């Protein structure tokens, strides 16, 4: 199978290894990633039910040193999570984390200290039914995709309700289970309008500006986009979750490139294989990019059998140097592309 390699972003490396959940390096269903000014990388581990008591944030660096981890486990108490989705730093350097089951935002320091939480369940202004994507602009305005209320809400960093826009539907300014959200350097807001298979762009006041994409698997089309991010010169990156790929658009929304994934062995993966020679020997003679039989010829099934490809790219992130991080929930790893 030919791997598409026409990247304006070039593949740099893979970080990660599947983790059974309970501690130490590796990831368990990673769902979100952010990088702070110290170049520490924070990964949110959502964890499957069998390992959910180990819900946590793991911290490491680009050199693959696993530094520390924090969290207060699974549940509804302060600092706990049930279905955490996304993270963002606020202007104070605090880590804001959404939870689509607990219907709240939880805030930790980067050292792992639980600070506070805000949000309640409901449909009124200032309430949530499934907060998912989160983004903070340079003035400290927090934007949250309130998915089952099919709207975007604006808050202060301390959780004071500022405003909202959107309703259920497929017209402009309407949403269908919105997921990822980001703010560009001009304070425009981009929303991954998940079940409408499109990206919508607004100004910070919620005025509609433009749309990218429609349903499909061709270039410039999406199946359930989960995340969007914009680099320093306005290029738009979209995690095209249902097509198991990342698509890249220029600042006017024209398609320029797509990434399907090209994972290699992380340092942690190499360590594992070194101590498990039976797996290494048989792996070395295997074809991990096989041709796929017709009845399994869907992006999901292809990715389930093709180890280098993205599988479950739930979120993406661009750091200060415009390096792209693709978070793969089903493969427990991060693929990193360099600008």
């Amino acid at each position, binding site marked *: 199978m030919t791997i598409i390699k026409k990247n304006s972003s070039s593949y740099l490396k893979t970080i990660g290894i599947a983790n059974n959940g309970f501690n130490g390096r590796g990831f368990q269903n990673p769902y979100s990633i952010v990088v702070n000014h110290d170049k520490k990388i924070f990964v949110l581990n959502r964890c499957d039910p069998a390992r959910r008591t180990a819900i946590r944030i793991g911290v490491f660096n680009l050199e693959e040193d696993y530094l520390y981890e924090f969290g207060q486990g699974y549940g509804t108490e302060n600092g706990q999570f049930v279905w955490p989705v996304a993270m963002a730093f606020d202007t104070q350097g605090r880590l804001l984390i959404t939870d689509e089951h607990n219907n709240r935002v939880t805030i930790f320091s980067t050292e792992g200290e639980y600070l506070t939480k805000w949000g309640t369940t409901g449909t009124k202004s200032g309430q949530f039914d499934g907060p998912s994507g989160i983004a903070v602009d340079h003035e400290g305005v927090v934007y949250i995709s309130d998915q089952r209320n099919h709207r975007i809400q604006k808050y202060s960093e301390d959780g004071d309700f500022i405003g909202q826009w959107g309703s259920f539907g497929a017209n402009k300014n309407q949403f269908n289970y919105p997921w990822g959200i980001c703010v560009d350097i001009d304070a425009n807001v981009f929303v991954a309008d998940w079940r409408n298979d499109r990206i919508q762009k607004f100004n910070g006041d919620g005025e509609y500006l433009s749309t990218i994409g429609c349903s499909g698997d061709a270039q410039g089309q999406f199946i359930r986009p989960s995340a969007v991010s914009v680099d320093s010169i306005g290029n738009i990156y979209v995690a095209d979750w249902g097509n198991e790929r990342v698509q890249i658009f220029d600042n006017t929304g024209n398609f320029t490139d797509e990434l399907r994934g090209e994972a290699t062995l992380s340092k942690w993966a190499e360590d594992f294989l070194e101590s498990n020679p039976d797996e290494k020997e048989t792996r070395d003679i295997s074809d991990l990019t096989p041709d*796929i039989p017709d009845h399994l010829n869907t992006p999901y099934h292809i990715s389930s059998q093709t180890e280098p490809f993205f*599988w479950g790219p739930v979120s993406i992130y661009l750091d200060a140097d415009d390096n792209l991080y693709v978070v793969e929930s089903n493969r427990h790893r991060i693929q990193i592309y360099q600008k």
Partner: protein
Amino acid sequence: MDTNANDMSIMAHLMRRAGFTATRMELEAYISDGYESTVEKLLFPGEPENMPDDMIRRYHVDQSEMRQIEGAGAYWLYRMITTKNPLEEKIALFWHGLFATGYAKLNQARVLLNQIDMFRRFGLGSFKTMLIELSKDPAMIIWLDNNDNHKGAINENYGRELLELFSMGIGNYSENDVKECARAFTGWTLKNAEYMAVRAGKDSIWPYGRIAWQYQYREEDHDNGIKTFLGRTGNFNGQDIVGMIVEEIATARFLSTRLFQYFAADEITDDSELIISSMMDSYFESQYQVSAMLRTLFNSDYFKSEKCMYARIKGPVESVVGTARLAGSYRKPTLDVHKLWFQTFFMGQGLLAPPTVEGWHEGTEWIDSGALVERINFAANEFGDVNKPGVKYIIDRLSRQYNGSIKPESLVDGCLDLIGPIKVEDLTRESLIEFVSSYNDTSLLIGDINSIGAKCVAQTLGLIASTREYQLA
């Protein structure tokens, strides 16, 4: 019983067998289509309609990755609970019991679900095609060691079970047939077989989670020598072997009997022998089509008769799914849905985890004191919640019918009707009436689900679920 009630009773019976029970609204829609038309729609359902995969995968990371059994089992249960094509799932469950393949040896949930999907695609079609697809199925290849079946060094495990458990039955072939069958299936393996076998053996998830499997034919490992099978001689490959198997009367009888016991009655009687014989005729006349065999069964007078009604004990999966469908639970992504899989396991039928290649022992063996308590507790919890959409619907329907005072007898009869209809013994009905009579006020008011009467309805439904008749299909 008047004509309408009889129609309802027969349609409910059909949907308990060809599906997982149906709600009153579904039954009314089926009756409006007519019995034989409904049978045809069940047999040829068209595109699957159930909870969409994207909704499941967005919330349940375990059901996106399919790393472990409980997530995979929950995914299948979601499909069974929300499908509008119930026979598609019911026949997949039939084949899962017959071609029992388990997670314990595979450590691979994704490929098990791929096998289940294969059962959906071919389950109502040609038995010949089904056996060929089964022989190519990666989960089956590892489960019965055909990856270790090599030219010059056969492993007869798959060849033996293909004849003994999957088609003809013991006594209809020789030991030499087993060996020759195994030779014909040499080279039928999976891609990257060595690596995948090592990972399966160690339950390795490293470095990056499971890698799904796919079939591969290795010509260089296939025994191209002359073989003699069931009295015929030639350079047979696996497809040729299957072609000869499906022509056997023993195969027709085996499959007809298994289908009869799954869809009609646990016990074989003189009456059932006649139907089985008709199903065998349909098998040959249709070139081995399962749909033709089931059409013969479902449209027979025997199937619609009192003899066939309540002649099967519901399996645990039928019980869990049927109760969830009636209660209206799990219609959207629900936290802890994986616990449903544990329910099937505690009741003795862990989906994707059959105890052996022989599958589950069915009929009366489903019921022991522990499993029965699990069934009753599960159903009581489901029906006891007045906020469940299905329970709310029954309360609402009774409220609209009576709007105000309702006699205990009417409340019991209404519940028995709307949860089925189910016909219980007189003594059971009297006990239910006695229970309802213990309530001071059973009035039902339209739109009020929090009244004592509404709670009485929910409790009564839970009690009905503990009756012998509810546990029968």
